[in-house]
């Protein structure tokens, strides 16, 4: 924390979050906690096949079951012909609509085919079993390397690559300089290929919603999402209901990490509610979450990096194949764009391929695509450092991107804090701590773009002189606390007098998704501008009360004061005093701002990881972990640290224990928390954090955004540590015990 924060009263302080008491007492209302009078339950019928044509669906028996109030299929949603793109943010409604309810084809086991609403969950489930679907089963393919083979089953005949039907749905390329010339000049070149498996965001709260539609067609949606405006827009697209007639209310959300930036249930519930005339509640089971929501891509990457013998990287090439699942849209932007971003490399060629296959469609997962690309690059850098006989952090420092560096993805960096993270790592006691037997230490860096985007806020002064702030972004990490800090700071009042609420689509202006590490960045901007307008109003009211010019009034420490002695000797007026006179001095005091915020700058992090490996069992345990990141400005340090720690532990799970396992019928074999192994409390040590603040010059408080960078370095940090503990490099994840043991004893695999 730098010295500037000493002058702040609330910014940088560890205040209690406004929604905290509700969360620790069980009062906070999440989507599944909701109920409406007359509510019935919705359930989805899902495909058992990885790939099949739907020949017919007969719902008659289901409709006849007592207690069933409505049945729907894909035909009840608006159709989006595949010829016409319909973009919505980074999604396309052609794919969203088919993902939410299959039309002519099912493309993964779990793909929704129909839905039922009935007076109890049990009846709805029974009714689903009575729906008769005739399938023509087709050959299927899941793994990304299998999906790009020339003889692979093709998912969509409208997808062509280089003129031929293909499962490669898209390509993204970044070029800088001339890589061939660069490699020709290199003294040392390392080229390696890497494989990762699909992993799930792992939010503990399953998707849920309660939806009602009144007789005049006005809809209310109460749901768990990372964006109520996205919910409204997608539902409007899919049902034809005008957006003004849809009120999407964000419940408290029990984790998202990107997985709730799209929807699965709400349009289905809307149709069922409209047909039945009753409010409909739907909640996914944990199994449905694992089978039919959006884990991130499995991948196959090849990275080649060349350096001259002084350690200067002269060329870098990366090819990243990412699994999209049933429809196009894997995060190749993150893989191709972020992987080389921490480095100043004159010649770069980075290519991403978007590959469809018969598993559920990906949704975003925290810095989508970037961990996959960074895994490959940061491991190759580790081998390069070793070949050059350089310390791995020294190699990074020597090639660190700085202000003015041009990144392959197109940006020229302004002032950034990457070097600072590397230096901090080198100087951290962790880096010098002694290691025990079977232990090893690895490092890695990472980058994420961060985002700005649309945001709206309302700041209103209550008649008793307190503050209500309404913002538009669901709070997934404690952002309300940061907003309270900023508002209190600007107004010069105690932060407990600021109440921060999340508005719904009817009560706050358009605000883009909670994601992209942007909530604090974007909402702080609009809250700051709104609060500055409010301060202007407060000065005007004081001026009116005193009979002087508003220019002669200043706002300081929560009070209006005359700006100088010749303005007049008036005792200061507090916020409460001015608020009490609001109606006599001009009316309510408040202001709102709606903006497309810009100026977001990328974030950089460097991690240090110590592991201990049991050479007889192949078990790897992380015994020490340090996260160092430039966040611009930590408005609320505890929640900034929380993002760093949470992302790091997700990355550790990705590196060591998490993966989707498929059976020989193409079905997910581990669709539960028992066998989809996320880190538990006893698996990880304390995660130390170092917050670097190189303020973003384009933001009023210097915020860069923190949430996503922390998941980018761990895959390589852990892999590099395992190498140093065992002498073996791993080129695929997860490094589960059987795979580690096999690598440690290749020659003596004991037979039964």
């Amino acid at each position, binding site marked *: 924390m730098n010295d500037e924060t000493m002058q702040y009263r609330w910014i940088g302080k560890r205040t209690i979050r406004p929604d905290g008491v509700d969360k620790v007492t069980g009062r906070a209302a999440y989507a599944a906690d909701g109920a409406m009078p007359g509510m019935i339950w919705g359930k989805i019928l899902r495909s058992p096949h990885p790939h099949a044509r739907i020949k017919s669906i007969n719902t008659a028996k289901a409709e006849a079951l007592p207690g069933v109030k409505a049945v729907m299929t894909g035909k009840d949603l608006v159709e989006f012909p595949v010829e016409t793109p319909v973009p919505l943010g980074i999604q396309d409604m052609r794919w969203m609509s088919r993902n939410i309810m299959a039309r002519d084809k099912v493309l993964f086991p779990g793909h929704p085919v129909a839905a039922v609403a009935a007076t109890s969950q049990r009846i709805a489930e029974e009714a689903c079993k009575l729906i008769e679907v005739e399938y023509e089963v087709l050959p299927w393919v899941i793994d990304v390397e299998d999906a790009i083979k020339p003889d692979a089953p093709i998912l969509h005949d409208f997808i062509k690559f280089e003129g031929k039907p293909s499962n490669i749905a898209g390509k993204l390329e970044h070029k800088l300089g001339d890589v061939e010339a660069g490699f020709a000049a290199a003294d040392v070149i390392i080229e390696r290929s890497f494989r990762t498996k699909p992993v799930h965001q792992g939010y503990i709260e399953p998707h849920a919603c309660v939806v009602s539609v009144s007789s005049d067609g006005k809809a209310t949606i109460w749901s768990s999402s990372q964006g109520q405006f996205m919910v409204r827009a997608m539902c409007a697209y899919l049902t034809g209901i005008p957006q003004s007639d849809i009120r999407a209310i964000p419940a408290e959300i029990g*984790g998202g990490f990107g997985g709730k930036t799209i929807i699965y249930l709400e349009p289905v519930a809307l149709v069922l509610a409209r047909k039945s005339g009753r409010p409909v509640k739907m909640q996914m089971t944990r199994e449905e979450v694992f089978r039919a929501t959006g884990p991130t891509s499995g991948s196959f990457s090849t990275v080649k990096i060349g350096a001259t013998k002084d350690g200067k990287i002269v060329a870098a090439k990366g090819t990243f194949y990412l699994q999209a699942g049933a429809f196009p849209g894997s995060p190749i932007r993150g893989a191709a764009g972020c992987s080389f971003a921490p480095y100043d490399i004159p010649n770069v060629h980075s290519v991403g391929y978007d590959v469809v296959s018969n598993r559920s469609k990906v949704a975003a997962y925290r810095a989508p695509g970037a961990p996959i690309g960074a895994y490959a690059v940061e491991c190759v850098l580790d081998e390069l450092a070793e070949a050059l006989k350089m310390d791995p952090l020294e190699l990074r420092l020597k090639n660190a991107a700085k202000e003015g560096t041009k990144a392959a993805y197109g940006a020229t960096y302004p002032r950034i804090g990457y070097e600072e993270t590397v230096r901090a790592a080198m100087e951290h006691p962790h880096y010098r701590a002694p290691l025990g037997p079977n232990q090893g230490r690895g490092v890695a860096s990472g980058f994420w773009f961060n985002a700005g985007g649309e945001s709206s806020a309302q700041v209103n002064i209550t008649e008793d002189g307190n503050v209500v702030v309404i913002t538009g972004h669901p709070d997934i*990490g404690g952002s309300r606390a940061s907003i309270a800090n900023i508002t209190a700071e600007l107004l010069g009042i105690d932060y407990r007098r600021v109440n921060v609420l999340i508005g719904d689509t009817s009560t706050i202006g358009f605000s883009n998704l909670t994601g992209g590490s942007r909530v604090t960045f974007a909402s702080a901007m609009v809250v700051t501008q709104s609060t500055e307008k409010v301060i202007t109003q407060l000065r005007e009211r004081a001026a009116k009360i005193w009979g002087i010019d508003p220019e002669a009034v200043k706002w300081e420490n929560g009070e209006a004061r005359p700006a100088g002695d010749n303005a007049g000797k008036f005792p200061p007026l507090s916020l409460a005093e001015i608020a009490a006179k609001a109606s006599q001095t001009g009316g309510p005091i408040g202001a709102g701002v709606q903006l497309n915020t810009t100026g977001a700058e990328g974030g950089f992090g460097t991690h240090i990881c110590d592991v201990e490996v049991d050479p007889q069992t192949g078990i790897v345990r992380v015994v020490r972990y340090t996260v160092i990141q430039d966040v611009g400005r930590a408005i609320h340090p505890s929640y900034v640290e*929380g993002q760093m720690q949470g992302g790091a532990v997700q990355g550790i799970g990705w590196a060591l224990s998490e993966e989707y396992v498929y059976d020989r019928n193409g079905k997910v074999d581990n669709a539960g928390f028992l066998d989809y192994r996320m880190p538990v*409390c*006893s698996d990880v040590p304390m995660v130390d954090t170092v917050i670097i603040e190189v303020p973003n010059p384009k933001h009023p408080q210097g915020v860069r955004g923190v949430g996503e960078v922390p998941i980018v370095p761990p895959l390589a940090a852990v892999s590099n540590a395992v190498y140093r503990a065992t002498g073996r490099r791993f080129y695929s994840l997860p490094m589960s015990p059987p795979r580690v043991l096999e690598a440690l004893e290749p020659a003596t695999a004991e037979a039964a």
Partner: protein
Amino acid sequence: MAKLHITTTINGEPVEFLCDPTQSMLDVLRDELRLTGTKEGCGSGDCGACSITVDGRLVCSCLMLAAEAEGRSIGTIEGMAQGDRLHPLQRKFLEHAALQCGICTPGILVAAKALLDSNPDPTETEVRYWLAGNLCRCTGYDKIVRAVLDAAAEMREAAR
């Protein structure tokens, strides 16, 4: 199917409810009694979000039939604060920012309270292993463990 009439105690209050023989305690708490603080994360005992105590014993309410509550004493998150006085664990969770999305928090608080009720001076390792059945995806567990250890210290001090 005939419903069962169950008489039990929840957070010290006498409670009666009707339930199906196959309804879980979790379903009855949430859907019949509208005590929605206890959460469903998985329904199969693998995440701990549904943690409650039964006669002081920490269990997953998704793995208990509501009928088994007959004559027992059930403790949920709603019973942890005393009116507007938060339990030290609840206060420490807020001070340490030991929650982000908060969905796992009720289960973890109930579990942590059960730990401190039986072991007022746990080590970090003992805390971690006790809470291994409570998944958290947001925090990486660091601040949770710190909050529990801090609450334990405060409670030991207050007991002296």
